[in-house]
């Protein structure tokens, strides 16, 4: 322990502690801006400065370690003045349209200005031109005008995700966050995970909003608008209404969506169960027939794009299953549209996702299985193609619509999903947390392979926040080795093993975001390590309390196979529920090279 004095009072603090943490320990809050626990500590903003006796200049508390006998002053005139000047320097060229800014009440810069008592900005706007917004991505929008160059986004992209789609360009006053060649996020190796949105202290990074299109569809009497909600949304959406994390607000979520005017409130959990049927069967088939192993889950669209960019050589390891979102769209616009007897083109499928990569996924050209199903039957031209999923809203966007509609979310009654596509099991709910897909798959695979009922459904080894979790499961004499990774930097480690031929696993689950979908880039701005853990516990609570906890027990899934799909991996499944991937590469040359290789390969056959 070190003995330090903070504002003339003695404290004992652990060695290696920063001044910031030492002060927090002593109950003193130091304002910060660029610092973000667990993500970014580079001291770029200059807001958290303090006086240290004997130091020539003020010191940054976020990156300066305490030393024995250190004497710290956190509230002197110099400290207050420097904090104000550095904040005002940022405000001088920051737009002041806070009232209409998406980030509004969640803006760290706005809060800081208020905390520091800044009443007017004494420096003038010096940037001659307004920097253009980057709207090249279907998932994210970047507004450089609101960027304060704190670099949290760069840190999370590089360190948590090992993607580095964004970095600094220019220098001095011309410094900017940008992509390679300033080509925009839509043309970069961006995975669309949206973790940058969550860490951005201002409104410089936001999802590309689809709210207007959804209102328009709801208001169109000709359209049957069905909505699906991802597992992780129900344990997070309440936070946007000031509720404490740790609860599943499923009933209130359903009630609010019904009041927004959606015609049917369905559940992505239904197709999560369906995914397990397809993916579980695919795994068993690969194991039995000597297929490509390890097989890797394919539910997380950020991860898919990451693999397409960085590991185009291992795409055969990815399960060919579409994600639950896309399976839902395909089933809704075929099986369910047929059931209702409506033209699939009059059905609008809206997803509410904890994710912004889902926006990109829904727009993939190959995600039009329902169109191909109907094309011959209805005599449609290629130009009349429609996507399986029409709109994707983040959890935040859904909360905004609920607010816009004047609904008092916490006061709403609990309501049930509509049927049939609202039926699900506990195995589907846990898709929202890291390890959940693995656990759901194991519950089904075990019983299908062994023909015996599991003694305990809880595979605790694959739960929790550890970056890479591994387990071994005995499947009727076969030792199944599994691994679970969340964040792309952890996924990269497992992928490198596969690339180098050293992977010991049969089955791998990858989730793009920390904690899995509960920590997705589309979740409320309250997302941090603590809320992630609380949301996960809410998910496992929900699962434990459900009567059905195994995907193959879902009666509607069973009916769907009976009435429509026939069997997992069957002909219809192949066209509607499975997909293929695109070799993208990272550099422009990579793709051409891959394509050429592909051509040559095809030729020899």
């Amino acid at each position, binding site marked *: 322990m070190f003995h330090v004095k903070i504002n003339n009072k003695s404290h004992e603090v652990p060695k290696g502690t920063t001044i910031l943490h030492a002060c927090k320990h002593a109950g003193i809050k130091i304002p910060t801006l660029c610092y973000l626990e667990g993500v970014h500590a580079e*001291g*770029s903003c200059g807001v958290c400065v303090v006086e240290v006796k004997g130091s020539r*200049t003020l010191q940054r508390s976020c990156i300066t370690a305490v030393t024995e006998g250190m004497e710290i002053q956190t509230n002197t005139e110099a400290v207050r003045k420097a904090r104000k*000047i550095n904040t005002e320097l940022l405000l001088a060229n920051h737009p002041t349209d806070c009232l209409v800014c998406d980030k509004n009440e969640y803006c760290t810069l706005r809060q800081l200005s208020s905390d520091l008592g800044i009443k007017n900005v*004494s420096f003038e706007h*010096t940037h001659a031109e307004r920097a253009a917004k980057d709207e090249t991505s279907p998932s994210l929008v970047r507004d450089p005008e609101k960027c304060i160059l704190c670099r949290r986004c760069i840190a999370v992209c590089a360190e948590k995700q090992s993607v580095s789609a964004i970095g600094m360009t220019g*220098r001095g006053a011309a410094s900017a966050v940008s992509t390679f060649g300033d080509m925009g996020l839509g043309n970069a190796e961006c995975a669309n995970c949206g973790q940058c949105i969550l860490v951005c202290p201002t409104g410089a990074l936001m999802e590309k909003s689809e709210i207007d299109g959804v209102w328009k569809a709801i208001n169109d009497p000709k359209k049957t608008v069905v909505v699906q909600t991802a597992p992780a949304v129900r344990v997070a959406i309440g936070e946007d209404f000031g509720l404490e994390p740790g609860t599943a607000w499923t009933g209130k979520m359903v009630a609010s969506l019904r009041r927004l005017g959606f015609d049917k409130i369905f559940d992505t959990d239904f197709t999560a169960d369906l995914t397990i049927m397809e993916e579980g069967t695919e795994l068993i088939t690969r194991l039995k027939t000597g297929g490509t192993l390890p097989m890797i889950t394919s539910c997380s669209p950020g991860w898919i794009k990451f693999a397409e960019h960085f590991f185009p050589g291992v795409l055969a390891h990815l399960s060919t299953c579409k994600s639950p979102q896309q399976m839902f769209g395909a089933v809704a616009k075929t099986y369910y549209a047929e059931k209702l007897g409506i033209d699939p083109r009059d059905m609008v499928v809206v997803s509410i996702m904890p994710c912004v990569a889902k926006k990109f996924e829904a727009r993939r050209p190959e995600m039009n299985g329902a169109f191909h199903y109907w094309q011959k039957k209805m005599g449609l031209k290629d130009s009349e193609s429609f996507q399986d999923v029409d709109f994707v809203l983040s959890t935040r966007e859904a909360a905004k619509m609920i607010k816009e509609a004047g609904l008092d979310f916490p006061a709403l009654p609990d309501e049930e999903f509509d049927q049939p596509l609202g039926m699900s099991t506990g195995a589907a709910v846990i898709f929202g947390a890291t390890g959940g897909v693995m656990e759901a798959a194991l519950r089904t695979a075990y019983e299908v392979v062994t023909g015996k009922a599991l003694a305990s459904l809880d595979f605790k080894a694959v739960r929790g926040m550890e970056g890479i979790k591994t387990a071994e499961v005995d499947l009727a004499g076969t030792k199944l080795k599994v691994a679970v990774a969340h964040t792309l930097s952890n996924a990269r480690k497992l992928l490198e093993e596969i690339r180098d031929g050293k992977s010991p696993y049969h089955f791998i689950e990858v989730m793009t975001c920390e904690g899995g979908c509960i920590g997705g880039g589309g979740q409320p701005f309250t997302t941090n390590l603590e809320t992630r853990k609380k949301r996960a516990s809410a998910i496992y609570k929900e699962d434990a309390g459900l009567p059905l906890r195994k995907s193959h027990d879902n009666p509607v899934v069973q009916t769907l196979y009976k009435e429509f799909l026939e069997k997992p991996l069957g002909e219809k499944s192949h066209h509607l529920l499975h997909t293929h991937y695109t070799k993208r590469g990272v550099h422009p040359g990579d793709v051409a090279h891959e394509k050429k290789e592909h051509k040559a390969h095809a030729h020899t056959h």
Partner: protein
Amino acid sequence: MPTSKSHTDKKNIPCGQNRLVLGNVGVINPESIDEYIAAKGYDALKKALSAMKPAQVIAEVKTSELRGRGGAGFPTAIKWAGAANEKSDVKYVICNADEGEPGTFKDRAIMEGDPHKLIEGMALAGYATGASKGYIYVRGEYTLSIARLAKAAADARAKGFLGENIQGSGFNFDLEVLRGAGAYICGEESALIESIEGKRGEPRLKPPYPVQKGLWQKPTVVNNVETLANIPAIVLNGGEWYRAIGVEGSRGTKVFCLMGDLNWKGVVEIPFGAPLSKIIKEMGGGVKKDRKLKGVILGGVSGSLLTARELDTPVDFKSLALIESGPGSGAIIALDETRSIVDVVDNIAHFFMHESCGRCTPCRAGNEQIVHLIGKIRKGDGSHADLKKLEELGWNMYQTSFCPLGQTAPNILLQSLKKYRGEWEACLAGKKEKCACCAC
């Protein structure tokens, strides 16, 4: 002593110098290793390898009291001992030859005129600290320096002064010449290291210092060209010999770059301790056109601004510190009575706005606001409140910038606001007619 009119020799070099570092410059053919060897070149390296332990080399440097010549004046022996004491399989010596300080060209003179001296100094630094690999990071525009260093390194390698088992001693040391890409910030040692690693040139958080975790996270000594060029003579003649030159706290000689409104401009080398007025008169031949001297920028644009009245201060670390100054890079930029201080500061402010790396708010946005405010003042639209804002910005940059670039960028601005207040006030709104000194 030569007078101001005939203060130079036949080659137009100022007389009365003590050229320890520049001794060979202009004398031997810099592209001939044989001429360097004939001038006792590589004798120091041979002596160290055959008769001295690494610790003894450091001890001699310690006795010499040599301080870094890049600007900060850090004791070289302490830096070396720090690296020598680190336990590591690999260590590095980096020569900071990214000479970007405006008005400074002394390292260029050494590299172009006597490249082997630098290479010998680096090999000695490697021997003393246990490093077997060196890098010379040269300012990108210095094409001749780069070419001569590359040739010198190849020749030294061929003669067994670089490479494996140097002079049969068992000591291995080799070096690479790297070319900078034009960023002033890369003269800051940790940004330079980042640049060598292929990253964006930005300063690192210290500690850890480079001697602990430098290039590729290995212990690394980063020394200026002039510092390293002093080493062979210290090793050859002993620390005591070196310590006898100069004054207390500032031993040895210093290479100065004479610039601005002087009759003679160029590089000179004299012992520490001479007053600036004497250097300007005896080395620079006095002010051009017999004008009066208004002031001197000492140590480059991140250095300090001295008035004509302050020029009797001896040029050494201790004496200059008393007037918030220092020898810095060794640049001496003379400003005659016709120069507008506001114009000079404006020029410097533009330089820093362009050269700030952009990492921290106070430097990135501060320099931009300074340029904006000076522009306003020069247009005649300024007020006393703007002068106060400049002072606040400068104070804030010094107090809260991440690295020395931002901390020193406002030096000359702040000193000008104190020492030449009248010139600033003359530019303010409503006082236009009184201001005859600048473009406003």
